[in-house]
């Protein structure tokens, strides 16, 4: 039995559709990520699960029982808000202790639990002060502490790391992972940062404009994106997508674009023959799969111009002009091609994804 099941959720605010037929399930102990750009409906989704908003349509089940008609405190979930919502008249300690106080826990137990969380989040020194005196990062950590101290059946975190410095973000990411594994806590984690989502999740739901674009494990959304949006959203740099037309020559199917011709694998050929695209295709290839060479060769037959290089230390990213499209490729930081103006690249057919332009979905 799944821990949380969400089925057919719909929510409108006046003329704006916040959620449109969203369904997914979360297993017990899973770290489930809801990933998407701002205004995708992610916060609305969490608030509906928590009971702060009522969905226009759809059911929510926790531990097998419907919670649609339960008040928030009856659902036994925990939610960290995007804007933190710390109680301004309470000290840091009282804020973190708040969820425990309404449950009849003894004061010494409260002090213990708050202490553990405070040590983990490095907020012991500010517990006696009020939120008005905290920095942005401190406020965020106190809010995280309040959500963690009594996580309930499902712990929901709405962009918990966005206000923090890059260093602290990385530290806390691992802390979350640790917490999740050690306590086997079911977590729903909302973010717009796909790096966070990939790093932490067991499963990712990609949301945009209230609709679910793909639901899958990190490997699935990375290696088998369902549509254009997912392919361009996941991965840094994102997948290259270049327009091409299909043409057959000597009974081999090719994708012909501006400045390149690549053969298509037999698997894709079979799929494309079964349902031919109406409006041309786009070939998709991730930057790390692009072959790069200094001279024309069977593996790198496509001429390209090196527009610029980003040296990120552990790797370098070339931005290459092919025809009138921009293609990014990843090379080793020591690769001499970075200093050149011209390069030769290749799109290996086994790493190629084919996108049907009329549906914006990948052919699989």
């Amino acid at each position: 039995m799944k821990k949380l099941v969400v089925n057919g959720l719909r929510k409108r605010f006046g003329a704006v559709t916040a959620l449109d037929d969203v369904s997914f399930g979360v297993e017990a102990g899973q770290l489930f990520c809801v990933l998407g750009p701002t205004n995708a409906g992610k916060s609305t989704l969490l608030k509906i699960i928590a009971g702060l908003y009522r969905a226009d349509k759809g059911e929510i089940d926790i531990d097998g029982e419907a919670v649609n008609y339960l008040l928030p405190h009856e659902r036994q979930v925990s939610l960290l808000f995007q804007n933190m919502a710390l109680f301004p008249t309470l000290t840091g300690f009282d804020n973190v202790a708040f969820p425990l106080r309404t449950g009849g826990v003894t004061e010494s137990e409260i002090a213990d639990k708050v202490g553990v969380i405070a040590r983990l989040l490095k907020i012991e020194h500010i517990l006696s002060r009020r939120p008005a005196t905290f920095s942005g990062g401190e406020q965020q950590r106190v809010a995280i502490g309040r959500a963690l101290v009594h996580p309930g059946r499902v712990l929901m975190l709405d962009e918990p790391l966005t206000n923090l410095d890059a260093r602290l973000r990385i530290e806390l990411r691992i802390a979350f992972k640790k917490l999740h594994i050690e306590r086997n806590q079911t977590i729903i984690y909302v973010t717009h940062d796909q790096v966070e989502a990939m790093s932490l999740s067991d499963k990712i739901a990609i949301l945009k404009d209230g609709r679910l674009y793909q639901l899958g494990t990190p490997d699935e959304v990375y290696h088998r994106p369902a549509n254009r949006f997912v392919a361009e959203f996941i991965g840094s740099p994102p997948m290259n997508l270049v327009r091409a037309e299909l043409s057959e020559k000597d009974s081999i199917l090719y994708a012909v674009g501006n400045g390149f011709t690549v053969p298509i694998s037999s698997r894709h050929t079979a799929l494309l023959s079964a349902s031919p695209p109406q409006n041309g295709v786009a070939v998709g290839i991730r930057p790390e799969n692009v072959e790069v060479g200094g001279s024309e060769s069977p593996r790198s037959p496509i001429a390209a111009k090196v527009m610029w290089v980003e040296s990120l230390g552990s790797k370098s990213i070339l931005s290459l002009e092919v025809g009138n499209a921009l293609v990014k490729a990843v090379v080793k930081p020591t690769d001499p091609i970075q200093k050149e103006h011209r390069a030769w690249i290749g799109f290996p057919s086994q790493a190629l994804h084919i996108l049907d332009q009329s549906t914006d979905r990948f052919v699989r």
Partner: protein
Amino acid sequence: MALRISTLGLWLRRLAVIAAMIIALFPIFWLVSTSFKPSDQWQQWPPVWVSARPTLQNYRIVFAPQAAHAFAAKQQGSIDYKVSGSAWKAFRDSTIISVCATFFSIVFGTLAAYSIVRYRTGGENYAFQFLMVRMFPPIAVVVPMLVLFSLLHLIDTYLGLILAYTAFTLPFSIWMIRSFIEDIPEELEGAAMIYGMRPLQAFLRVTLPLIRGGVLATALFVFILNWSEFLFALTLTTGNIVTVTLQVANYVSASSGKLYGVQAAMGAISTIPVVIFGYLIQRHLVRGLTFGAIKR
């Protein structure tokens, strides 16, 4: 040259402020001054600014008509006053009605505002629709109100006036408190709800304390409206209930004559409760309590 112009500007501004202050405070001054004048100076022209012969007789009449009567009999040249009713009753009646009506108006107004803001009751413009009710002059509804109240046996009762005043100040309460509630992000109540409180509990214990200043300011405003209300007090009572406003009117009537000095005394005194109320709550009219709790 530039310096002189700016100094001139400064003095002009100061002059303007002084003029505004004089205009605003003159009625109060005149009220207090007249309240200490003997009867022959009440309508003197040119006007007597500050009486050379101040007397407490007007105040005596306000508070103790019998004693004043006796005093007047002993004085040469003073008018015999025939005044019915003591100001004490007026103060008592006004206090009961104003305090109760203010209380109900604030309580219902707060709950209605909560419902409108957090639950979007009544749609987009519900609060404004309430406010529109107050845009026609009350005199237009006085006659129907009279009929309605007499059918309900509410004429000349405390309950009647309290209900009428509550009804007529409710739109202001809702409108003002609504804006204070909107200032507080709903996530604050959301957090309280998720961590154990029922919705209304969360509102009363988390949000309400944060808007305390605003609610008190609204209460003051409503109290002033109730305290100074005349039309309904006049039409919905027949003599048993006398509010301060009615009592003030009584001093200039066919039966008692034109007792302007007494009227001034009553008027001066009746501003006092409002001033005290305002003074008491000014400490609570401080904003800035939510600073830092919410990320904007």
